[in-house]
């Protein structure tokens, strides 16, 4: 059980009632995390909440980190929102007001972010929120919203990975028609809104369909899409749906060429004999990177040791690994800024530096993360071609 809910509520109440007790500890930096670790929308949140404890554990076991003359250890408070905005609101309050946490990772879910946003905004300048949720894009980089930075690079724009992905697609396959099939939730709707113009700008005709969350049988909607005769199918966005979409599309002979910007190589590898083309954005092709990059190998070993189970190569391990990186990145920013509690200074340092971990991470002017990624191109039979992209 690595998600720690330290200090029961009652104890916290006591601490709040007796001033001084709560602030008595020294040389500890608290970091909070609010993610959906369980519940129907827990895929990303669950993985994120796996990455952070590994890094925290490593740093603490190594004796902590030094800022100025003091050595600090990290204390992680990871709370499970279950994807319920009500829970998230309570938990964020607990983190900010009772535990006086200054750094919060999460959330990945847009509805959770949107709900806690007005409250969190009251703490602008007093804490830093690092979340991956798509809708954070609407709020980030605006005056008054300095508290939030987005830990995922944006799809659109010259540095957006979406543009780069589509460019790659045009370059290698030059499609005329692309069909998009997204989950009917905020993430899916936003993807539709982003990619329609990107394709249009390149003269590619599009068709967009949405499916109910939890759909398992896609053949009706795939049949409908097949009527549009797309060159590529662009399905999104979580593995749970992708496995089913890719398999059913290949088996049902609807479309055998896929283009994905969220997800993993798993669905492609699983159906490698039936498909013709499978172009996917992955933050990192872990199988290849493990051999070449010591940091990646170290992370994979640490993951196996920490959770005592295999590393899920074919899944989307992005969140666990990137959140692992984020902890180190934050520590580096603290060291550089020479403080652990001047949030503004740390934020500025963070935004101006480039962190070189498993990823090369920097931020754009809107406080949105930019990192390098891989395009994995699978062809029939499973031949794999990896293109490294640095925006």
């Amino acid at each position: 059980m690595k998600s720690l809910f330290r200090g029961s509520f009652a104890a916290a109440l006591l601490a709040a009632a007796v001033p001084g007790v709560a602030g008595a500890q020294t040389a500890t930096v608290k970091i909070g995390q609010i993610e959906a670790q369980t519940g129907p929308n827990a895929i990303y949140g669950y993985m994120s909440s796996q990455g952070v404890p590994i890094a925290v554990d490593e740093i603490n076991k190594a004796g902590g980190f030094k800022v100025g003359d003091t050595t600090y250890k990290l204390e992680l408070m990871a709370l499970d929102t279950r994807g319920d905005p009500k829970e998230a609101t309570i938990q964020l309050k607990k983190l900010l007001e009772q535990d006086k946490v200054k750094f919060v990772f999460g959330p990945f879910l847009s509805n959770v972010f949107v709900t806690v946003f007005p409250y969190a905004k009251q703490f602008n300048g007093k804490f830093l929120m690092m979340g991956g949720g798509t809708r954070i894009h609407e709020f980030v980089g605006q005056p008054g919203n300095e508290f939030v930075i987005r830990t995922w690079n944006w799809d659109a724009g010259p540095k957006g990975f979406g543009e780069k992905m589509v460019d790659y697609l045009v370059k290698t396959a030059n499609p005329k028609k692309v069909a998009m099939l997204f989950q009917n939730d905020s993430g899916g709707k936003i993807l539709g809104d982003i990619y329609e113009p990107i394709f249009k700008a390149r003269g590619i005709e599009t068709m967009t369909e949405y499916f109910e969350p939890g759909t398992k049988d896609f053949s009706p909607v795939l049949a409908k899409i097949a009527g549009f005769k797309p060159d590529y199918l662009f399905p999104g966005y979580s593995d749970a749906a992708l496995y089913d979409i890719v398999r059913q599309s290949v088996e049902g002979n609807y479309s055998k060429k896929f283009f994905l910007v969220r997800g993993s190589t798993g669905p492609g590898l699983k159906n490698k004999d039936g498909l013709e083309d499978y172009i996917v954005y992955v933050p990192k092709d872990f199988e290849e990177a493990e051999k070449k990059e010591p940091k990646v190998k170290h992370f994979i070993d640490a993951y196996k040791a920490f959770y005592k189970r295999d590393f899920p190569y074919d899944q989307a391990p992005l969140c666990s690994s990137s959140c692992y990186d984020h902890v180190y990145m934050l520590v580096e920013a603290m060291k550089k800024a020479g403080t652990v509690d001047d949030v503004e200074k740390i934020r500025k340092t963070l935004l101006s530096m480039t962190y070189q971990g498993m990823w090369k991470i920097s931020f754009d002017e809107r406080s949105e993360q930019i990192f390098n990624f891989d395009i994995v191109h699978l062809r029939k039979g499973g031949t794999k071609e990896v293109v490294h992209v640095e925006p």
Partner: protein
Amino acid sequence: MKALWFLIPLYLLPLVVKSDTMLTVLIFTFLLSILAVGFNIVFGGAGQLTMFHAAAFGIGSYATFLSMLHFGLPFWLGYLVAVVVVVLVSIVIGWICFKFRLKEFYFAVVTMAFAELCRLIALNWTSVTNGTLGMLVLEKPTLWLPRSGIVKIEQTAAWYFLTLVSLTVVLAFSALLMRSWIGRNFSAIRLNEDLAQTLGIDTFRYKLLAFTISNVIASFAGALYGFYTGFIEPSYLSVTQSLDAIAMVLLGGVSTILGPVVGSMVLTSLPHLIELPAELRVAVYGMILILVILLMPRGIVGLAAGLLKRRAHAS
């Protein structure tokens, strides 16, 4: 009405507890209590197992906000619009269900189907509800108070008192209702519909009334909830939300005045008082539910009332 004394400590609580988090937990507890009180009127009162209350909850928040957005109404007037909508919807659905004499399981399933349809409409009628993206609610309710004039409900403490007063009003209403002729007619229907009819009660009309009142109360909870969280999304109308309220009422004690509040305390507040890893919290929720249902068939309040009565008899 004696049950309302139970709420007095809650009014005094903010004097002792300064924790914003604790108050927030209680605000949500109160809001969900209101929803549960609504369900208790139709199920605990008239014995009709509805699954529509979450839909009414959602319609309440959507309709209030949309009428504020489009007609520029203040919160309370906006809520009145929502009441009209909910009453109309309830009458139509209730009319269909009761005219066709749907009972028990069948009534539950048909109301659940209607609730799902409402949720799907909220989800896909994007031009009005903003679909799956939900709606950000930055407006806050206002209240006219003596001395201070018009006050915006913004701070946690203000919300605490607004929701607590709302709960008190709703509870008082439900207590009044239950001991009035209407409540007695509901009881007669719950006891035996044939008997109720031979006692001169138009059961169709009173079942419809119970269904409508319950939905209006649920919509009140929904309106406040939406404005408190500042975000309205289609999952407000989900079956899970309905089931949660049902669990609260059965846990606390069906057909009792305080049951829904106690149930909501147990299911909403308690998880925040216990230190548990994420995966186990879900399991513990399930265990509490199972144990209470199996060991206290009349719920916590029912059990307590039984014990008190027995003690009174013994002495």
